[in-house]
């Protein structure tokens, strides 16, 4: 047996291996020396350094070649590298935004950093998965870390409740996904994503069983993205979780979920596009409608942003369902690059808007209600302007990145012939504009209730400002990011 063993090529997975080693090292460090204050203070910066190192490694090993390793279970391509880089930026930002909030609540424990690192590892594995088992491994590593993170404030009953909900619904979704994967294995006889695609191409797959499995896969993906009717967990978890966890859940995992969608459905089941696009269509319509309508009724900003996420995911699905028209596949590149652009833009806006909640929170005060933003313009014109940028961008008003994300999705959808669906989406983004405008109204038109000065550390102020300016600059010069997304996909498809 041993003679047949070929050592796998480890270089494509170098960033993941680095991250894992560092996570283990930090784990040991915190386990054996947690009483020393000095070491405890080191863990935060060490985690940041790990992420930066991981990003540097990803960047250095980035090339246009697609390499498969670990018996074709792991793929290293440009798509993966690009998404991982953005992932690193997003997670690093999350850590910077969260630090003060956690410190004053005595939650800045080593567990937090470790769980974030493992969640990041899970997302990286999901992004680079080329095998159903790898997809599932990454997904579970991410999800389990997130469940624990939501519950990290053990004394808060609200957070515990949110964690329970998240866990139960998440486990159900994982079960559905796993069931779907087993069906597909049954139909094609392989778990490799490339192999599945080949089997379908050669008509070697049992098509009835395939579609049966596909339904479960789509349900699992829908849960991870948070699209209606698999959205139930989003509002409760977004509201109940401590804000830094909401920030984390609301940003980086969307990149991983997007990658998972591409890997499973586009790389694996592209020939069944007609079927999964039809399912996406229903999910997109429902998400856009429900997300925008329900957000109007909210008084809690985190919950409102949760519903807004749902509607954004509807737009993402709108792009993903525009890749194949009949048997014509030449729309695919445009549609998926537009979807990727949308996800990246969304992550940027989501980081900023949850970051604003963290900025205004302080010891004993959670600035998570809409009323907490009242009169912000009088307290800090600069950060009121930043929040206005995030809100307008989410509403899809130019010149901000969110507008161009929406615009390019709508263009792809009209191109694919979904004109009436686009009109529907446009009408609901008008309804959506109302609740984003309401936030601006509170900040600018109303007198402040809370007049405490904003006490945030310099690094957070700078990063949050950079985040806002970034949303504006990527809107003034949208081509760079769009072109990057397109170029990435050209080399990876």
């Amino acid at each position, binding site marked *: 047996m041993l003679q047949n063993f070929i050592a796998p090529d480890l270089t494509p997975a170098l960033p993941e291996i680095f991250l894992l080693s560092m996570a283990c090292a930090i784990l040991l460090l915190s386990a054996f020396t947690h009483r020393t204050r000095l070491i405890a203070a080191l863990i935060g910066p060490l985690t940041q350094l790990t992420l930066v190192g991981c990003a540097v490694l990803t960047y250095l090993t980035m090339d246009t070649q697609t390499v498969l390793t670990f018996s074709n279970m792991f793929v290293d391509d440009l798509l993966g590298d690009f998404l991982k880089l953005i992932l690193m930026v997003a997670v690093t930002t999350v850590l910077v935004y969260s630090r003060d909030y956690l410190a004053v609540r005595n939650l800045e424990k080593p567990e937090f950093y470790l769980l974030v690192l493992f969640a990041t590892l899970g997302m990286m594995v999901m992004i680079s998965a080329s095998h159903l088992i790898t997809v599932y491994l990454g997904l579970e590593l991410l999800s389990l870390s997130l469940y624990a993170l939501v519950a990290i404030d053990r004394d808060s009953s609200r957070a515990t409740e949110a964690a329970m909900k998240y866990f139960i619904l998440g486990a159900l979704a994982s079960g559905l996904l796993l069931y779907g994967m087993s069906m597909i294995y049954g139909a094609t006889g392989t778990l490799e994503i490339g192999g599945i695609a080949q089997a379908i191409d050669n008509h070697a797959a049992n098509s009835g069983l395939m579609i049966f499995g596909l339904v479960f896969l789509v349900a699992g993906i829908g849960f991870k993205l948070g699209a209606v009717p698999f959205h139930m967990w989003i509002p409760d978890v977004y509201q109940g979780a401590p804000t830094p966890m909401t920030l984390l859940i609301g940003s980086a995992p969307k990149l991983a979920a997007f990658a998972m969608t591409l890997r499973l459905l586009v790389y694996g089941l592209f020939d069944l596009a007609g079927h999964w696009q039809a399912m996406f269509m229903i999910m997109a319509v429902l998400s856009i409608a429900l997300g925008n309508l329900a957000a109007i009724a909210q008084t809690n900003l985190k919950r409102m942003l949760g519903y807004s996420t749902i509607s954004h995911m509807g737009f993402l699905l709108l792009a993903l369902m525009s890749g194949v028209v009949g048997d014509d596949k030449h729309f695919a590149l445009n549609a998926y690059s537009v979807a990727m652009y949308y996800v990246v833009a969304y992550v940027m806006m989501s980081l900023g808007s949850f970051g604003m909640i963290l900025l205004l929170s302080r010891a004993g005060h959670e600035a998570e209600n809409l009323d907490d933003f009242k009169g912000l313009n009088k307290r800090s014109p600069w950060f009121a302007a930043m929040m206005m940028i995030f809100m307008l961008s989410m509403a899809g008003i130019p010149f901000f990145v969110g507008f161009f994300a929406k615009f390019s999705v709508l*263009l792809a959808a009209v191109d694919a012939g979904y004109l009436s669906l686009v009109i529907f989406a446009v009408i609901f983004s008008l309804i959506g504009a109302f609740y984003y405008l309401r936030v*601006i109204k509170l900040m600018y038109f109303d007198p402040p209730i809370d007049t405490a000065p904003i006490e945030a550390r310099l690094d957070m102020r700078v990063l949050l400002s950079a985040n806002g300016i970034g949303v504006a600059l990527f809107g003034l010069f949208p*081509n760079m990011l769009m072109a990057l997304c*397109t170029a990435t996909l050209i080399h990876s498809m």
Partner: protein
Amino acid sequence: MMNFLLSLSIWTPILGALLIFAVSAIGAIGEHSSSQQRNTVRWLSLAVALVSFLVTLPLYLGFDTQATSFQFIEQAPWIPRFNVWYLLGVDGISLLFILLNSFITVLVVLAGWEVIEEKQAQYMGAFLIMSGLMNGIFAALDAMLFYVFFEASLIPMYIIIGVWGGPNRVYAAFKFFLYTLAGSLLMLVALIWLFLESGGSFVLPEWHALKIGMAPQILLFIAFLIAFAVKVPMWPVHTWLPDAHVEAPTGGSVVLAAIMLKLGAYGFLRFSLPIAPDASHYFAPMMIALSLIAVIYIGFVALVQTDMKKLIAYSSISHMGFVTLGFFLFNSLGIEGALVQMISHGFISAAMFLCVGVMYDRMHSRMIGDYGGVIHTMPKFAALFVFFAMANAGLPATSGFVGEFMVILGAVKTNFWVAAAAATTLIMGAAYTLWMVKRVAFGPIANDHVRHLVDINQREFLILALLAVCVLGMGLYPFPFTDVMHISVDNLLRHVAVSKL
């Protein structure tokens, strides 16, 4: 230098506004007293507004009135991924609006000199940004660029109404934003459709040349109509305007009436007519009917108003009805008359709102009933007020007469009864404007508040006098205005006369 004029006219006020924000932020940290701080902001704003106006003057001086094509063209790739260009250029139709806009912005800055006490830097900055964005709308020759400016211009106006507006400002700000956004989002779908239909281009002159079948033309026309009719505003989607006007601060009302309403009308000339000419002819009777309803019915509505700002708002809708009427007559008198009417209405409505603003600053009331006999205490002001009211009613020798007369002449060529109905505006306009002036300015002094009014100061006199000169000048000698637009209008009419089917 000549090639960057349009960019300068767009970005000077916007960058200037950012500079003002920065200066006021630094001032807030420093030890400056607030009055010193306010002075810096005011003078800086005026300087920015003046420079922005001055850079638009060479546009007029260097404009070739004989050329049929767009001038001062600037072209640079903006979003190559979707073939969107940073493409600017003006013709005789858009040129005057850029000048008007930059001119009005100077007046708005002057008008907000003393009245605005809260967040003055933001107030001035918002108006300057809006001025730049609106110049962008008039200069854009790429449909996406147009759209982006068109929507972005809502943001500063929303803030202006909401922060510095009257008691019901929040409602008005939302209504303004959502109404306009509703219209423009459907236009976005139309733009995307045209992009795909034209083989991947957003360039307007290419769209003008594009052959389109009747059914899509009708749908396009409707999509554009919804967007622009809301903005004009045409009856029956006009209801946001009185609310916005009443609640907006004086400067906001001025910019709304003088420039923002023109964006919709301009859209008809740039999009609806040249892109869907057959549908435009098909819908012309409906458009004329809607315009006449605006002229006559809204004229009656204006008559019964008790709030001066609301009255002028309704009078604006009625006057804009004249503009849309002129467009859909499809003759050069009609369209030129409509354009003259737009410019003239820019001056007159700005002046009327400034007059109301002058009184409001002193009395904090817009109600006609609270006034009476203002002429006894404010003679200089009353003279100018009466003059602008006459112009609003379309008195010959004022600019208000020129446009209306040309449109009525154009209407006679098409249909006598349309002309007759349109001509009632001269009676209606005189009725509601002069009756208001009679109740406000003339008669015995109504109460003690009026008795203690102080006449206008030099700054206020300067603003109103400048506008009076424009109104009178344009009324006596409209040639410099019509001369610029003549070739472009003829060109447009030739284009619209050819079927695209």
